[in-house]
């Protein structure tokens, strides 16, 4: 979707393709699926409206105005509209482009720029720096929230984000990355060898989830190779409109994983999975096509992978629980993986799956959206929690750390009894003891 010639009133670098915006025939099928349209009832906050704005910029009918910047960042990038769109318009990706454009049109002041560059270009790309900066309550500040608050003035921020950010942090253990052996051997009859893409948020905040993912994989008969040099997948950079750094990270990870002797590359983070699957497009002009398609063919989300190879259920222990499943946007909408997690849940002996209403409606986390728009986020979250409540489940399952943070926080705030678990933690409970 990137281009290098100027398109209408966009700048040359990373502008949307004209074909991608003209594709929208304005049928409005996206409207009932858009959480921000549900919040505002305002057409410009809908996928159809946002694409129309981008089209107007492309056709020189509108400058790239602050309102477009605002809409680009107000979009949750949940991709529910992509799933709903019969015409194949990808409004979320068009808005990602517009985020990148926003930085070109509205450059930050010196300090802001330096801070943003430090966070996105120095700190996040370096696993070591991320780990050493892990004074838990300061993590969020260091990840740049304070900077966002101070410099994205267009976002009407209240002071509540700070409490929320701190309140959301789970009880932190040591990061998983340094603890995890480079190779963990398969157990039982060996079925293959997978590369494990350990995401930043997973190693830093949910080490126990990814530990379970590795246990599940080895129990299923796979050697698990975890390259220690793995860098951030680039999703935060795409989300913040820094496509260039995202490309550099992608190029690094591409070579790193292609150099491993593995049959598949698996991740347990829906956000990483979605970004990794987009490398092909992101790097279209920067890497050989053959390499990109070889990489793309190997990428799997963990639930997609387990269903594809077939879950070995012998030896699984009973887990008596009523669970409900919240679909992460970056799994169901961005990757189209919706049936697989449910199938795995149903295969765990003793587990009863209780479908909630609107399981694929966003939880309101959406990277840093939940902090930037904390009041709107609360409304989206409340809608989700009502549906969780009505399901009558004891355990709320998800498969993405962003959702996990938001939902666990929401459940706690609301005084609800549900445990929030990653699907791999639930599956981990069914594994025989190591």
């Amino acid at each position, binding site marked *: 979707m990137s281009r290098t010639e100027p398109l209408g009133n966009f700048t040359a670098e990373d502008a949307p393709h004209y*074909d991608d915006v*003209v*594709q*929208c*025939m*304005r*049928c*409005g*099928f996206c*409207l*009932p699926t858009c959480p921000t349209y549900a919040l505002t*009832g*305002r*057409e*410009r906050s*809908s996928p*159809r*409206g946002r694409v*129309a*704005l981008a089209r*107007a910029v492309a056709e*020189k*009918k*509108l*400058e*790239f*105005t*602050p*309102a*477009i910047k605002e*809409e680009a960042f107000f979009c949750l990038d949940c991709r529910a509209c992509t799933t709903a*769109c*019969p*015409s*194949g318009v990808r409004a979320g990706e068009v808005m990602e482009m517009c985020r990148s454009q926003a930085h070109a049109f509205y450059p930050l002041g010196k300090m802001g720029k330096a801070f943003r560059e430090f966070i996105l270009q120095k700190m996040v790309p370096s696993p070591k720096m991320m780990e050493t900066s892990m004074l838990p309550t300061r993590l969020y500040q260091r990840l740049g929230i304070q900077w966002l608050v101070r410099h994205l003035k267009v976002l009407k921020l209240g002071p509540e984000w700070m409490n929320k950010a701190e309140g959301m942090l789970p009880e932190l253990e040591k990061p998983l990355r340094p603890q995890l052996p480079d190779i963990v051997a398969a157990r039982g009859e060996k079925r293959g060898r997978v590369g494990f893409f350990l995401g930043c948020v997973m190693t830093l905040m949910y080490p126990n989830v990814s530990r379970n993912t590795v246990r599940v994989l080895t129990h299923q008969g796979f050697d698990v190779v975890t390259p220690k040099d793995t860098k951030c997948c680039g999703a935060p950079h795409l989300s913040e409109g820094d496509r260039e750094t995202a490309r550099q990270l992608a190029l690094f990870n591409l070579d790193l994983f292609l150099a491993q002797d593995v049959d598949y590359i698996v991740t347990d983070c829906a956000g990483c999975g979605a970004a990794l699957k987009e490398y092909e497009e992101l790097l279209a002009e920067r890497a050989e096509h053959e390499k990109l398609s070889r990489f793309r063919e190997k990428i799997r989300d963990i639930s997609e992978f387990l269903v594809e190879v077939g879950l070995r259920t012998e030896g699984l222990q009973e887990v008596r629980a009523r669970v409900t499943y919240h679909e992460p946007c970056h799994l169901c909408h961005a990757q189209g993986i919706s049936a697989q997690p449910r199938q795995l849940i149903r295969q765990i002996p003793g587990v009863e799956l209780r479908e909630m209403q609107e399981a694929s409606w966003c939880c309101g986390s959406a990277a840093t959206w939940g902090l930037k728009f904390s009041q709107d986020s609360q409304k989206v979250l409340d809608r989700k929690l009502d549906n969780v409540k009505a399901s009558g489940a004891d355990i709320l399952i998800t498969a993405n750390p962003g959702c996990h943070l938001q939902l666990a926080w929401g459940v706690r705030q609301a005084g609800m009894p549900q445990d929030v678990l990653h699907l791999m933690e639930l599956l981990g409970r069914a594994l025989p003891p190591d």
Partner: protein
Amino acid sequence: MISSTAIAHLKEKLGDANVLHEKEDLLTLGYDSTPGVHHLPEVVVYPTTTEEVIAAMEIAEREGLPLTPRGSGTGLSGGSVPVKGGMVLCLTRMNRILEIDEENLTATAEAGVITLDLFNAVAAKGLFYPPDPGSQKISTLGGNVAENAGGLRGLKYGVTRDYVMALKGVLADRSLIATGGKSVKDVAGYGFKDLLVGSEGTLGIVTEITVKLIPPPQDKRTILAYFNDVRTAGEAVSRIIAAKIIPSTMEIMDRAVINCVEDYVKIGLPRQMAALLLIEVDGHPAPVAEEAAGVQKILEQVKAAEIHVARDAEHAASLAAARRTALSALARMSPTTLLEDATVPRSRLAETFSEIERLTEKYRLKVGTFGHAGDGNLHPTVLCDERDHEEMERAHAFYNELYEQVLAWGGTVSGEHGIGLAKKEYLARQIGPGGVQVMKRIKQVFDPQGILNPGKIFDEGDPCTQVHVEEGFRVSH
């Protein structure tokens, strides 16, 4: 331009959040789903009560602004496009279902209620509201009334007009109108209600609608038939009707449409087939079984390539849902999708398909055809690129010639989308200068100043003295 005092007044009466006038908002509220038409209003208001509608109309009059009512903007003839600028009255925030009357089998709702929401609400009480336009998930009841929307079930159950029992609204002079009621029979005087249905907002602003409900069918069977050529499918339709079987749905898709829909829904539709018919019979179990058998027999007689019966309700629903995406899915094929709404007497269906094929070839176009075959309502859709002027000319010539034939057969230029902006010329051809004159006179009586949705259905002398705010504006930050 609208004055800042007027904006302030509107905000005072309707609340800040219900008045939009920033250019980005205007830009996104000047289109519907019709290709090629897009005009900017000067202000958009979201009344939440009839009083607010009147207040907004009063301010519009002071400012000399024409009024264009709008729902969700899913129309297919440009009915809600503010072609003369002015004020857009967006009724989506008047979205309460006011009553479901189980004794009289009626439902009363505000104009902004989403069609499917009403369907679901009455279904929860064991009742059935049949009109189901393709965009029912997002279209509003008010929009359906304005355009007299049809849908997949039109064949057996009719269109929106057949279910409207009463309307309330505001006329151009801001007086209230209430017409019709819950009485099943009502022949008192002129049928204003029927005049308002399908008037596209040119005669009044409808704010409240009472619709008739019926008991839902107890049983349903869905049959899917594939064909090696489109004409055979058309023949099957005519023969089913001739056999005195009225299915609730009889939808057709040709190969182009099948492939686009399959690209999106991925439910295993046969990509190599020339056409498919989706047929649903419903009602009491005994006649349903009989009719389903009758349909199958006819399909065998005409030598359909394959005949399948839907496994279960879920499968049937997924097929109907797939059909609903046809138009939008076709948009995958080309930047521009020009859609028409030609409707012929059902006996002419097979010939109409031949004519579409002939004209497609003659004008060297890519055309996908789908539609409600059972009621003769077809949507031949030209897949083109609006930047290619020569191709666009051929597309228009295609429709011109097609409509000539459709009218010669006693058909109509619009089965369910309305006239709006897109089909004014064709309407004039269908009803003649005399017909247009009568319509203008009716309009004159309801709206002597020409302030309600000007520029729609027929061309006016130019009762509008307002500045024409067109697309193509420039703004800077």
